[in-house]
């Protein structure tokens, strides 16, 4: 009753109107603010996306700079790559990154991307990847002749008996991994992206691991010979021994051994760049004495007659490394009086192996053929103990997170 009386009083409508106007104005301003906030949020989202790509760009560039230092052999833990506010092509995107080494010896990259007021960070933990993650990796064909055994061991850990190794091809063509009768592969076997393991891998032999298809293409880093003194002649020997110590490292035009000629490596680490062919006659050898190592870069072919070979006497696979560096077609025929211990990186070379006993190490080739009855052991230490000083070692992202 009182309310009714009040509402009939003079000025009541005006009061109600003022209240209504205030309410409507507030509602309108709230709507306008909502629209503006939505727009601001959209702009921030867009800037956030740009900042995220900036951070990714920083991470990619950091990895590239790290690997450039590695390949140039200028890596130092005291001066690791870092960049501050690098602008991407005069846009409003920019990034900063820095590389650190944590207490566990792991290298980490922190990349900060910026776009306007948006900031995104990506943290990545790196790992060193060597050339030999696979026991045998080819671009085309692995031929395992009858009664071949492929298995593993770990030269750094004698107690390790649970071997995790793989062989495979990046090819997707049928029959690229034929297995002879009696052949045993104690490893996983993979085929190229989009390939069918059942058609690429032959039906013979026994595979104890999994067969699978690669999800991404594998890269084959190009290896460049180091800068060495140019000798300009071939290492030639007939019925004699040429002894080389580290002072003999250099660039030679070839190696030619005949009538039990020998090249003996002793006294430390020897690096040879052979611009021509390596020809080894009957009974000839390249011997690497214990405590020494031979790193061999070859532009030409390797041919060998009977009862010849590369004799790495200490049995450490890191003591004999062979790299194909030629630009034309190359062929490697590798024989051994006894076992072969070493690694071969020749992704564009056809490699034929005749180990009379066994081979230990790892192989990357275009086509790899093991002659009948071969035994091949992959050294897992080649994958698990990659050093900054290893030829072809490079940083890759092990895991990452963003915020």
């Amino acid at each position, binding site marked *: 009753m009182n309310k009714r009386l009040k509402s009939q009083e*003079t*000025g009541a*409508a*005006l009061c*109600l*109107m003022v209240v*209504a*106007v205030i309410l*409507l*104005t507030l*509602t*309108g*301003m709230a*709507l*306008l603010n*909502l*629209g*503006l906030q*939505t*727009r601001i*949020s*959209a*702009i921030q*989202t*867009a800037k956030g*996306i*740009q900042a995220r*790509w*900036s951070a*990714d*760009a920083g991470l*990619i*560039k950091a*990895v*590239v700079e790290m*690997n*450039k230092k590695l390949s140039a052999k200028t890596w130092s833990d005291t001066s690791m790559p870092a960049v501050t506010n690098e602008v*991407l*092509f*005069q*846009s409003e*995107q920019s990034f900063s990154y820095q590389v650190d080494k944590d207490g566990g010896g792991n290298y980490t990259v922190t990349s900060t991307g910026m776009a306007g007021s948006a900031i995104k960070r990506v943290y990545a933990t790196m790992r060193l990847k060597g050339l030999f993650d696979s026991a045998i990796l080819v671009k085309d064909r692995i031929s395992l002749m009858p009664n071949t055994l492929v298995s593993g061991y770990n030269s750094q850990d004698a107690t390790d008996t649970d071997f995790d190794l793989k062989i495979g091809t990046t090819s997707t063509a049928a029959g690229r991994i034929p297995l002879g009768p009696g052949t045993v592969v104690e490893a996983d076997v993979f085929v190229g992206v989009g390939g069918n393991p059942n058609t690429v891998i032959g039906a013979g032999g026994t595979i104890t691991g999994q067969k699978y298809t690669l999800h991404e293409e594998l890269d084959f880093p190009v290896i460049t010979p180091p800068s060495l003194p140019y000798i300009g002649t071939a290492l030639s020997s007939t019925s004699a021994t040429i002894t080389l110590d580290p002072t003999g490292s250099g660039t030679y035009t070839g190696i030619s051994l005949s009538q039990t000629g020998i090249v003996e490596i002793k006294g430390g680490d020897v690096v040879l760049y052979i611009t021509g062919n390596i020809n080894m006659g009957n009974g000839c050898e390249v011997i690497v004495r214990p405590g020494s190592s031979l790193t061999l870069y070859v532009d030409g072919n390797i041919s060998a007659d009977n009862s010849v070979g590369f004799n790495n006497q200490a049995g450490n696979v890191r003591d004999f490394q062979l790299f194909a560096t030629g630009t034309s077609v190359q062929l490697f025929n590798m024989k051994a009086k006894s076992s072969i211990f070493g690694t071969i990186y020749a992704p564009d070379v056809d490699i034929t192996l005749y180990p009379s006993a066994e081979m230990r190490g790892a192989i990357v080739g275009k086509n790899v053929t093991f002659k009948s009855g071969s035994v091949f052991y992959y050294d897992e230490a080649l994958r698990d103990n990659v050093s900054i000083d290893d030829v072809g070692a490079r940083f890759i992202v092990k895991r990452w997170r963003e915020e």
Partner: protein
Amino acid sequence: MKTDVISSKREIRILKSGRRKRASGVNLIEVMAVTVILTITVVGTSGYRYYSSLNAHWAQEQIAAARVGQLFCGNWAGVEGDETYDPTEHLDSDLEMETLASPDSLPPAFVLLGGYRITLEGVAYDCVLAWKDVSPELRALWVRVEWDLREKDPSNPDNALTKSFIIITYVPR
């Protein structure tokens, strides 16, 4: 005495009725004023609502453009910036896409990969992809998405308000 009382009561009633008539007239003016002010306020509030909706619409377009750019950039970066990358092969099954003629401008020294139009909810987003090798190990990818905030009037093309969103990143070579 009684007559005086009756007379004064009538005067009071007359006075009261006269006052009531004057009060009703003022209320009518008030009501009219209120109506006018409320109308103006409601119309103004509608304007607020319109601009709010417009901002929301623009925001939606901005986010869509950013996501389209992200889609193209992510897809292209996924194949490491391959210069033979063709978005119509990778994305055409999920998006309404057509190839555009060469765009008029690119950043200096960038190589055009292609121009593509994606239509989402009636809005056309024109995407231009370009790349540049900044070093033997590093390639820069550039993705620009353009769209019109106002629909183009064929008779007055200058009236269109075009917005753009650009993403630049690196991929390893």
